[in-house]
């Protein structure tokens, strides 16, 4: 089974590498959204420092959402998805591998680029660790929850907007814990509690989400 999963992961990453513009778009979107806030609100350093964790997290949510539509769409269109459903490898593990590949392509770049955005927002460098760690723990949860929505809306008209409507309310706890952790660290109280809760959400989502994604895919393709 490990072979199948490694193969799947390799395939999805290779596909992403071949369609580099897809990957770049989500990252560029993240950067542009975070650039818009100072332009709209004003560039006072104190204000920017206060809103930085929230803005970066909201942008991460939206950016993750943007790339979710493609998670199953291409495989659904060319019939690969049906082969995965019929295949011997357990579907839960297959979708977990796909969600992991989605995170590597769409979530991990955000974790890497976030300190640069934080620099623009004049966030103290002592908070970069908390910010990156919160994104590292939180963005995989976004990929896992989002994959449920992507599977449910597979092949529907208006799928993109619908996906946002379904998934964004479910993202709320991740947003609160992610941005809250950085704010706690900024207040000098330590981000540990929030990061631990984010970790708990990651474990919970990693256990239950693949089951739900698999069920949603079976509903969508039957």
């Amino acid at each position, binding site marked *: 089974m490990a072979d199948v999963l490694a193969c799947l992961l390799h395939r999805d990453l290779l596909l992403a590498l071949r369609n580099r513009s897809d990957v770049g778009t989500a990252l560029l979107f993240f950067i542009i959204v975070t650039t818009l806030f100072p332009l709209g609100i004003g560039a006072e350093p104190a204000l920017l420092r206060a809103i930085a964790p929230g803005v970066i997290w909201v942008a991460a949510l939206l950016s993750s959402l943007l790339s979710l539509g493609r998670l199953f769409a291409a495989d659904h269109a060319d019939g690969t998805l049906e082969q995965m459903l019929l295949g011997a490898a357990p579907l839960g593990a297959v979708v977990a591998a796909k969600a992991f590949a989605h995170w590597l392509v769409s979530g991990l770049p955000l974790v890497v680029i976030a300190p640069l955005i934080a620099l623009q927002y004049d966030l103290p460098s002592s908070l970069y660790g908390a910010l990156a760690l919160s994104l590292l723990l939180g963005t995989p949860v976004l990929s896992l929850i989002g994959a*449920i929505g992507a599977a*449910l*809306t597979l092949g*529907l*008209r*208006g*799928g993109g907007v*619908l996906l946002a*409507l*379904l998934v*964004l*309310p*479910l993202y*709320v*706890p991740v947003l*609160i*814990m992610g941005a*809250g952790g950085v*704010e*706690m660290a900024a207040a000098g109280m330590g981000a540990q509690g929030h990061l631990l*809760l984010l970790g708990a*959400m990651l474990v919970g989502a990693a256990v*239950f989400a693949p089951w*739900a994604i698999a*069920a*949603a895919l079976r*509903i*969508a393709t*039957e």
Partner: protein
Amino acid sequence: MTAAGTRWFWYASPQTFYPLAGKMAPAFAIAAVVLAAAGLWVGLFVAPTDAQQGEAYRIIFIHVPAAWMSMFIYVVMAGWAALGLAFNTRLSGMMATALAPTGALFTFIALWTGSLWGKPTWGTYWVWDARLTSELILLFLYLGFMALQAAIDDPRRADRAGALLAIVGVINVPIIYFSVKWWNTLHQGASVSLKSAPTMAATMFAGMILMALAFWMYAIAVTLARVRCIIAERGA
């Protein structure tokens, strides 16, 4: 299949449930009207004026039962959804679909009356209180459920996809509630608390319970009427 087993599933078929729902809906509707009349009479004329909030508090006879129903209906909806996925009964999905608009309506009423109460009492229509915020997110969950079902043409797929979403949602509701609560205490923005409300007079409590029962009966009546429409629509 034992005799008891067959009886258990007898009304799970839309054909047999349709006439039963037609008989039950008017009875529940009458009960709703009677209970609402009694509840409004107790609430508006019998219950004493509140010492701190004056007459403005009387909106709780609508607000609190609506808030209770908004959460309760989501759980019932998820329960029907789970039943539908487990037993593959067609009626369960229809019940979940029929419950969603009523739940969304109660959520909206709870938010609306809450803001009307908040203006004279708290001095503002909206505060980012944990309860208000999670109620708003609950409304989004209802609307998401309805939007997903509306976007799917095949009714069986709509039922099953909606069922899965309702179950995912019901697991998330407590997580959302507690995270919003912790977020709220972190921000310290809204210092008003519902806990500071004075202890309630017996007649106020009676009025609220009567209204809650009235809303309950209304929800059942409307859901049964709606499920009849859904059965007729699908020609089942």
